[in-house]
Structure formats: structure tokens, C-alpha cells
């Protein structure tokens, strides 16, 4: 009986300590916190060691930052950059955390994290969401910090994104002295057509790259290549485009239309030009039947070697580098408006409005957008530096394959007149997309006619412009 009692007492203590065991490792976490990538650790040991002795770990300000990577290679590169910057920036301990992915509601989750107070200090958001984050007060206006920084100049970056990054919703002003700066663009990107040259050659179709050089690369030539390759077999497609606003917008833009009016305060999808673009896009699916069915992801099909021309951004390059057929890229074909109607995609590093260390966060944002850092990321192939400089562009051309990197630069060149992806300061882009995206899909899959779409879309879409 006594033994039993002893046993019970000890069991009780042990079980109680199990509950407390829970707190075991915070101490462990604290010492091991910065995730050191293996390649990073081997490449930058020399820098890291003195930095560690200079600034005792206790006094370091801990800064977390996040981007949305689309694959492991990107995670590795950002992890490496984080380790490098950790060594460069004094008094700061950096922790890089890869965010979710596009499919995993990256921005939505960030919003709930800022609301719950658990968001990182610095994070990347897509250009379309800047207005929403800014007007909700979730991100910091860094204008004062920037004014105190000599090395920073708004003009170093592409004007399209910077218009939105410096937009002051109270005054409506934009530019270097608008009193607003929401962050710095991480990179830019644009669409091109990824070509399966094996299919194009097999079909005996003309080489789109040659046509583009000769200035003959327009919708008719595009359709010709698409039809010739489609004729190779029922499982071979001439064209593949993903189902989101980007590809849809290209055809609208190239026809001379636009999603919005000039000052982005109303829907303009009902203009004849916009409808013409949509009609052509629809014909690719319905009349000519050259495209991977709308809504089905064309990327696996392209990578399986069954799509001749796959429309996607620079971010698709690292994945496509693994395919085993001959491939390259070409710029988008010119539409009736005389331009290809391309987008200038971008996203920006912004600062959490509730960060405890705004100065350090701003220093990190700058460090993340230096020419050197941007070069390292661009070398991976997933994006184009957001700094406007000849060196950056020259360096970009060396990041092959694809051989024809110039196609991307042509897409963002001034005379191609790309439309900058951007937030709606007078409304909400995500909400606009929630209304128009399904409606456009309805047109492309044949559920609605273009005429009905044109007659109703703006009545509905204009409701998101209430502010």
C-alpha cells in the first residue's frame, strides 16, 4: 500500500512536470532562431563571424521579414540574402520566413496576422493590394524615414510602381514629395510567350522570334502559329494562358481598352476596345479552339511538351528551365492598338504599421532593394530588378536560358507602353477582381455573351469604387 502511494506521488509530480516541459525550448528557439541555410553559411562565414562579435546578440533588434516564394529555389535565395544582410546590418537580427503561395491566400493571411499582431516587421505584398493595406492602416508610411535618408531616391525605380507607392490618399498627390511612401518595389515582371520550339518546328510554323524581329508579330501571325501547332494532334495546344486577371487584361489592353478609366476611378470594361480584346481572347477558346481549356492550368501541359506558346511571367522561368524540349521566349504579339498590351507586374516590401522598430525595418527595406540584392535574386531567373539602371538590365540579359531575355525587357520598355499593375486607391482591386474575374470567365467558357457582359459588367464593378 505504501509503495502504491509513493508511486502515485511520483507519477503526479512527473505528470505535472510534463505540463511544464512545454516551456522547455523557448530558450532553445531563441538561440537557434535565425534559420541558417547551408549554402549561405558556407558562403558568408567570414562576414558573419566579426558581426557576431561586434554586436552582442542581446542588444540586437530582432526583425522578421517575409516574401511569397513560389518554389524552394526562391526560398533558398531569400534565405541566403537574409543571412547576408544580417551580417551587413548592424544591431539587427534578421529572420526570414517564407510566406504561403499564391494559391494559399498569402495576402489574406497577412491581413489577419497584422490584425492579430503577429505579422512580421517587413513583408512583401503584391502591387494590387497596396491601397487596401495602406488605407486600412496596416502598413507604415515611410515618407519621413525616406526624407531623412540621402541615398534613397524615388526616381531610381520604375515610375509606374512608384506612382502608387508614393500615392497619398488624403491629398491625391503622388511623387517624391507627396508625403507618402508605402514601401519599395521588390522587382518587376512582365508577360512573354514561352515557346516550345520542337512543336513549332514540327508544325513547320514560322519562328515567332523571327517575326518579332521583323515587326510582323501581331495577332494574325500569333493565331497562325497557334493553329498550325494545334493541328499536330488533339492533345497538342497552340496557346495556353492561366485563368486570372493578368492574361485577360493583356488582350483587353492590346485592343486599346483597359480595365479602368484613366484615373482608375471607374470600370471601363464595357468600352468597344475592351470588348474587342475579350472577343479575340474568347475566339482562341471557342472559334479557333487553339487554347488549353480556360481554367485548366496550362503549365503542366506546357511542361509535358504539349503547348506551343505558353503565356506567363518571368516568375515561371526557373520551373521551365527543367523541361527537356527546346524552348525560348518571345514578346507578346501586338494587338490592334499597335502595342502588346503587356502588364508591368510588381510587388513591394512594406513595413508593418505596428512594428516596434521602424528605423531598422526601413533600413532592411532599403537593403533588400539595393542593386546588389536585386541582382542576386534576378540571377535566379524569377524576376527583373525594379531599379532602373543600364547595368541592372545588362546583367539581366546574361541570366539565361531563355536566350531571348530581351523579350522581357521589350515588354517593359517605354515604347511597349505596359500598364502598371496597381492598386485602386478609389476602390479595392481584390474586390474588383472578385466581381469581374468570374464574369470574364463566364464569357470565355461560353456561359455569357460578350454583349451581355458589356451591358452589365460596369454596373456591378463600379460598386467597388465607393471611397
Amino acid at each position, binding site marked *: 500500500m505504501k509503495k502504491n502511494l509513493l508511486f502515485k506521488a511520483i507519477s503526479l509530480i512527473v505528470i505535472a512536470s510534463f505540463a511544464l516541459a512545454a516551456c522547455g525550448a523557448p530558450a532553445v528557439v531563441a538561440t537557434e532562431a535565425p534559420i541558417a541555410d547551408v549554402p549561405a553559411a558556407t558562403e558568408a562565414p567570414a562576414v558573419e563571424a566579426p558581426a557576431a562579435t561586434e554586436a552582442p546578440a542581446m542588444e540586437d533588434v530582432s526583425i522578421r521579414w517575409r516574401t511569397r516564394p513560389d518554389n524552394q529555389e526562391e526560398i533558398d535565395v531569400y534565405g541566403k540574402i537574409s543571412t547576408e544582410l544580417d551580417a551587413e546590418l548592424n544591431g539587427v537580427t534578421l529572420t526570414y520566413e517564407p510566406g504561403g*503561395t499564391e494559391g494559399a491566400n498569402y495576402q489574406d493571411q497577412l491581413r489577419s496576422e497584422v490584425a492579430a499582431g503577429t505579422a512580421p516587421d517587413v513583408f512583401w505584398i503584391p502591387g494590387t493590394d497596396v491601397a487596401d493595406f495602406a488605407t486600412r492602416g496596416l502598413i507604415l508610411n515611410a515618407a519621413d524615414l525616406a526624407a531623412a535618408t540621402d541615398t534613397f531616391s524615388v526616381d531610381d525605380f520604375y515610375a509606374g510602381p512608384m506612382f502608387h507607392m508614393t500615392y497619398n490618399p488624403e491629398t491625391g498627390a503622388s511623387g517624391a514629395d507627396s508625403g507618402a511612401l508605402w514601401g519599395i518595389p521588390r522587382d518587376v515582371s512582365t508577360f512573354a510567350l514561352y515557346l516550345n520550339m520542337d512543336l513549332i518546328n514540327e508544325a513547320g510554323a514560322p519562328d515567332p522570334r523571327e517575326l518579332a524581329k521583323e515587326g510582323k508579330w501581331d495577332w494574325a501571325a500569333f493565331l497562325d502559329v497557334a493553329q498550325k501547332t494545334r493541328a499536330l494532334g488533339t492533345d497538342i495546344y497552340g496557346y495556353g494562358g492561366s485563368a486570372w486577371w493578368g492574361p485577360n487584361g493583356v488582350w483587353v489592353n492590346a485592343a486599346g481598352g483597359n480595365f479602368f478609366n484613366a484615373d482608375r476611378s471607374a470600370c471601363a470594361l464595357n468600352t468597344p476596345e475592351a470588348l474587342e480584346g475579350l472577343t479575340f481572347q474568347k475566339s482562341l477558346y471557342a472559334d479557333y479552339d487553339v487554347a488549353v481549356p480556360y481554367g485548366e492550368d496550362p503549365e503542366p501541359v506546357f511542361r509535358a511538351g504539349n503547348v506551343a506558346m505558353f503565356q506567363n511571367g518571368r516568375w515561371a522561368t526557373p520551373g521551365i528551365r527543367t523541361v*527537356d524540349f527546346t524552348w525560348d521566349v518571345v514578346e507578346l504579339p501586338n494587338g490592334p492598338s499597335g502595342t502588346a498590351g503587356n502588364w508591368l507586374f510588381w510587388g513591394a516590401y512594406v513595413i508593418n504599421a505596428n512594428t516596434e522598430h521602424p528605423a531598422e525595418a526601413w533600413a532592411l527595406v532599403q537593403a533588400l532593394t539595393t542593386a546588389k540584392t536585386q541582382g542576386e535574386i534576378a540571377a535566379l531567373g524569377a524576376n527583373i530588378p525594379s531599379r532602373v539602371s543600364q547595368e541592372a538590365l545588362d546583367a539581366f540579359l546574361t541570366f539565361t536560358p531563355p536566350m531571348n531575355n530581351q523579350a522581357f525587357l521589350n515588354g517593359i520598355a517605354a515604347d511597349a507602353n505596359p500598364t502598371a499593375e496597381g492598386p485602386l486607391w478609389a476602390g479595392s482591386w481584390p474586390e474588383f477582381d472578385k466581381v469581374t474575374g468570374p464574369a470574364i470567365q463566364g464569357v470565355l467558357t461560353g456561359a455569357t455573351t460578350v454583349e451581355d457582359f458589356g451591358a452589365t459588367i460596369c454596373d456591378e464593378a463600379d460598386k467597388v469604387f465607393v471611397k
Partner: protein
Amino acid sequence: MKIQSYRLLQFLNKALVYLVLTFFALVMVFPFLYMLTTSFKLPADTFRYPPRLMPRDPASVTVAGFEEPLPLYHVEVDGQQKEYALAKSNIKVGVYAPANDTAATVDRFVDEVTPTDKTVSVAGKDEKLYDVTVDGQVVSMIQISQTTVGEFIDPKNPENKAYQNVRKSEPVESISAHPENYTRVAELNNMNRALTNTALVTILVVLGQLATSVIGGYAFARLRFPGRDTVFVFYLGTIMIPFVMLIVPLYQLMVLIGWTDHLAALIVPWIFTAYGTFLMRQHFITFPKEIEEAALLDGATRMQILTNILIPASVPALATQATFTFLYAWNSFIWPLVIINVGNEKNHVLTLALNVLRGRASDTPNLILAGAAIAIIPPLIVFILGQRFFVESVASSGVKG
């Protein structure tokens, strides 16, 4: 005679039963089978059409004069099926014909013909003329069409060559497996950590829920106290309420006490359930009262009765509830989605990790399905081990509930 046909009928009847059952069994099993086999494939193999169940590797061969091993294809040479290596692809071939007789076509490699500056008008269209050698004579011809072929060589005798369309050629393959997909996905997405988290969360939820519902159910079943029946009716009434009703207020509660982004938020709220308590009460109430009363007379406390008599006798019921809770905790998605940050992969559970993985590895279905297998197989094992309890308990919950 009558007996005979009766037997035949019996047999047909049985055969029909097994046929129907097997058909449905195949429907039920096929997605799992597909998941497992695809998770052992190479990425390129997953995109094949027509799809094939078993993972296959393309065969290759080293040929003298080539540094890299060359892929092997089935090639028809002189009416015989042979395994030839692809030495060169994208060789352009043209179909040429004289402008005045477009039916008399000849096939030539494009670099064997010489383009000229001259053109000829065919059916109102200007066509370029080429110098094509036919039977030793140079003839001016137009190009009817153009395509590409690959050069296939006999690996043993590279002088033997054959030309045909590469895309339509059947590659030589062998059945293989790539278990390294699993190690890759574990590293890629912190899947091993997610597995640990899920296991920990599940274990704690199961143990905690069993503990609270056993003593709660015992109180409901055996102890008389004022207010008991009111509370019980209240419990019963909430069983029907769907969890999503609580998602917003529970989220705000977690924000308030600072548990967002922590595993505690996935564990503690799930320890206290009305349904589990209800099930335990239903079980205890069937237990004969006399044993308990005898024990009470012997001076045992309520707790002793519970731990020494009732719990040992209730192992099947406990196992039932444990398996149910296990599945629920293991598979839950919407609550972790709301409460655990997307960036904090340290605290991801398997379902969340899968949600991230599906975006991050969207072009490698083999990895996605390996991830899905990691999430699905442990419950399947638990199911197989506890099959008896499990199926029986589902049945009893239905009959009683």
C-alpha cells in the same frame, strides 16, 4: 433439374454480389492507389497522356562518340521493332513539289535543298522556289510543308540510322520507384515538422478530451445533483451546432489571450466537447449500478470507482472515442487555417503544410501527392489497427444517436 437451376441461380446471385462490391471497392481504392503510385513517379512521368498507373523511368544508353547517355526509343526499322537511341532531334524536313504538279512530292532535309531568290505564283500566291536534287538532277520546286524528325541510331552500331517523328515515338521505359520524393517533400516544406506538430496536437487533444469527457460523462450518468439534467439538455442541444458558428468569436478570443499562431489554440479548445461527454455518458449509463454501490459501501471514493472499475471496463468505448477524436484532430483544416500564421511554418500542421505545398509545388504533382500520402497514411494505419472498434463504434453511434 429444379435443384440444378436453383444452384445456378444462387451462383449467379453470388457472382453479382461480388461484382457489385468489387466495382465499388475499386472506385473507393483507386484514388488512394493513384496517390501512392504517383508519389513515386518522376515529374515528367506524371504529365504523360495517356496516364499510366505505375511509375516508369525512361531508359538510356551510352553510345560511342556521345558524351551523354542517349534516350532509347522503340523505332521501326525495315518493318522490325528495334530499340534505337535518339542522337539528334529537331532535324528539319521539307515536303517539296514542282509548282506545276504539287502532287508529285519528294521529302528532303531542309539543309539539303538550296533556297533561291526566285518565286512562282501558285493559286494566286507567291511561293518561294528551292533547288531540289531529284535522281541526281536539280529541279526547281516549292515547299509544300515542313516538319521535324529525329535521328535514331542503333546503339550497337551507330552507323545504322533511322529517321522519324520524335514526339510520337514510344520511349523505352522500365517500371521504377522514386521514394526520394518523400524525403524531398519532407525537407521542402517542413513537412516533417508539420508531421510532428500534428502528432503532438492529436495526442494531446485525444488524451485531454478523453479525460474531461470520462469524468464529465460519469457525473452525468451516475451522480445526482440539482441542475444536472438542465446542463445535460443544454449539452445535447449544442451537439447540432456546426463549428463554423464559433470561428469568428473563437478567433477573437484567441487574439485576446494571445494564442493565435500557437499550437495551444489547436489543442485547448478541442479538449472540452459536448459530444464526447455525451457518448461517455451513454456508455456509463449502461453499466450495472450494483457493482458501484457495492464498492461505495466498501468505502471507495467516486474517483477510485471511476479509475479502478469503470475505466478498465470501458476500453472499447474509450478506444472508439479516441479514434474518432484522433481523426478529427488530425484532419481538421479550417481552424488551423484561421489561427496559425502562414509564415510561421514551424507551427504548421499537415493540412496547412499541404495547402502551402499545393501552391509551392504546383508543377510537381509527384511531390504534392507524396505530401498528401504523408497526411493520409497515418490515419489509415490507425484505422487498420483499430478497425474492429472503429466500424463497430460508428455503428453504435448511429443506432443510439
